[in-house]
């Protein structure tokens, strides 16, 4: 990781992209086993989200939905660099973070459908999808609200001397909120074991980054807080993984926070009914050609970490898991009305 941030070569932020990354400068010492892990995680999130999209099409998903489709390599690369006991803080676009961190897919899908078997007993839904025991601190409906919580969780890891780290996901849009500055600063002055993961998909709803961010990259802002940062291709799980590994190492050693800007793109609109007409066609085409699943699959095949058959077998197995999860979710019961009163307080009130 470089200590100063640099934008990816050829990127014009927020406009039509000509991104020339993914050259053969990655894959330093990534093992074959890890490449398979990255492929599996990326694909698992993809298949999960495609299933969510189907269920949504069948009108089984109430409320709104922020799909993670397109950004899978970010969640995969980051979580592959973490231990199970490490934490992630999620966002409103959180399905991918939760699934990649190892949450139970049955409970995750049931939650999206509002079922009592959901990980939040149907109280949270898409925007609050969380599985605490898998190491997810929470998904949040308030953009940028996860950053202070992640800082606090990292402070807790530091004070309890657990050697655990916290990876905090947030969007390009979130980086314009006050919590960004407050939290980065806290993490820097206290050398907290936190990794700030910016998922720069170049839009906050319909607003392109060029309208809201004066600098060439968001990573540049980390310099003001003396936090080492880098920019990586967020559609390449290996690049994300390598950057995260380095940041995790620093955090575990007591070296403090890092910031990784992962440049990526939504395959779909922002939310439920957004056709995303505001994005230029050539920009969309460019990013679709850099598909996260294909990218990691090609690398794994090229590095002989996988055969085509093995890749297919993994896909078949994951698809079955996802299908079963959907089955479980659809068949599960809705909560009883009186459950509205449950879980306000842990103690008596």
């Amino acid at each position, binding site marked *: 990781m470089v200590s100063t941030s640099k934008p990816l070569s050829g990127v014009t932020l927020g406009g039509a992209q000509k991104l020339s990354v993914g050259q053969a400068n990655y894959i330093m010492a990534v093992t074959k086993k890890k490449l398979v892990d990255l492929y599996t995680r990326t694909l698992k999130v993809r298949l999960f989200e495609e299933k969510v999209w189907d269920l949504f099409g069948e009108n089984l998903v109430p409320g709104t939905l922020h799909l993670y489709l397109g950004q899978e390599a970010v969640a995969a690369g980051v979580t592959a660099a973490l231990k199970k006991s490490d934490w992630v803080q999620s966002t409103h676009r959180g399905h991918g973070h939760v699934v990649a961190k190892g949450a139970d897919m049955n409970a995750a899908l049931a939650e999206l459908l509002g079922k009592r078997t959901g990980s939040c007993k149907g109280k949270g839904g898409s925007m609050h999808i969380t599985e*605490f025991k898998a190491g997810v601190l929470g998904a949040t409906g308030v953009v940028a609200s996860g950053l*202070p*919580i992640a800082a606090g969780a990292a402070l807790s890891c530091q004070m309890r001397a657990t050697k655990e780290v916290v990876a905090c996901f947030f969007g390009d849009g979130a980086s314009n909120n006050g919590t960004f500055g407050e939290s980065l600063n806290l993490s820097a002055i206290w050398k907290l074991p936190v990794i700030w993961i910016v998922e720069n998909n170049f839009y906050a709803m319909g607003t392109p980054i060029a309208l809201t961010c004066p600098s060439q990259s968001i990573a540049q802002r980390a310099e003001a807080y003396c936090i080492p940062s880098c920019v990586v291709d967020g559609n390449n799980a290996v690049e994300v993984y390598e950057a995260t590994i380095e940041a995790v190492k620093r955090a575990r050693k007591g070296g403090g926070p890092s910031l990784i800007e992962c440049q990526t793109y939504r395959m779909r609109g922002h939310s439920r009914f957004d056709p995303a007409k505001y994005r230029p066609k050539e920009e969309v085409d460019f990013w679709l050609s850099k598909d996260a699943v294909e990218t990691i699959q090609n690398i794994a095949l090229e590095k002989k970490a996988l055969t085509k058959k093995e890749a297919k077998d993994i896909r078949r197995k994951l698809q079955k898991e996802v299908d079963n999860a959907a089955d479980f979710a659809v068949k599960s019961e809705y909560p009883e009305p009186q459950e509205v009163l449950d879980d306000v307080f842990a103690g008596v009130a």
Partner: protein
Amino acid sequence: MPEKTYRDALKEGLREEMLRDERVFIMGEDIGRNWGGAFKVTKGLAEEFGDDRVRDTPISENAIAGAALGAAITGMIPVAEIMFGDLITLAMDQVCNQAAKLRYMFGGQTSVPLVLRSVFGGGKNLASHHSQSLEAWFMHTPGLKIAVPSFAYDAKGLIKTAIRDPDPVMFFEHKLVYDRKEEVPDEEYLIPFGKARVHREGDDVTIWGTFLMVHKAIEAADELAKQGISTEVIDPRTLVPLDKRTLIDSVKKTGRLVLVTEETKTGATTAEIAAIVQEEAFDWLDAPIKRVNAPDTPVPFSPPLEQAFIPDKDRIISAVREIV
């Protein structure tokens, strides 16, 4: 029993809990060794427990509350301080959208054992940004518990209970009671949440109030006694959970109720209490419920204006006389 100030009683409670449980730590602006808190509640604690456990923060209210929350759900017991109650506005998201709701929206997967201390009230000519009483906002947010100690004895017992509570507790203090003294045991004791303290027993009228207004109500009750009016004075000590039983029983006995707080009148905690009493004890009321509050204005600066703003003993006495 030794007399202690409210400030020292609070500090004693904090100190005992930090000695008892090493997960307890304090964070906030200027709470550490250089200053000891804007109202000196934490003075000396950094020297005793170190700068890690008595942690000065930058002026980042939302991050203070949010970081306390993050620490609370991962195994620590933070006591965060927001220097003035008015400044909780900068942390409203973390307090009201996150801490209050986390357990519920995650289906009981976690709980949030965090205490957020802050201070309300006027009387020091600190004007509109350092004098407000905003407790009703938090009473209107399901998921938060609210302690409102008015006396030194309660301050110590309640802060200890707050720290041991598994839920987020808003612990509100009052600027003008820090120096007031009361007998406070040296040894440990806890005061359960949801149990009011009855300061005066009486038959003719009930006064329910919080913070400095409890002290004013007691003065009013003593004066009214000389005029032959027997007044019961109730201090709820916590707003959530709320001791309805003590209040309702008192109203059933006296048939008359005066509510007094330093809040601006519209939407104040007194409005909620009035609604509860008419729902649950309407048939026992012999007169309309009276509310004594501040006017619906920002808190003014100039001494005569601020005096006009904050309710006093005389206003309480006239309210009582109107219904007795």
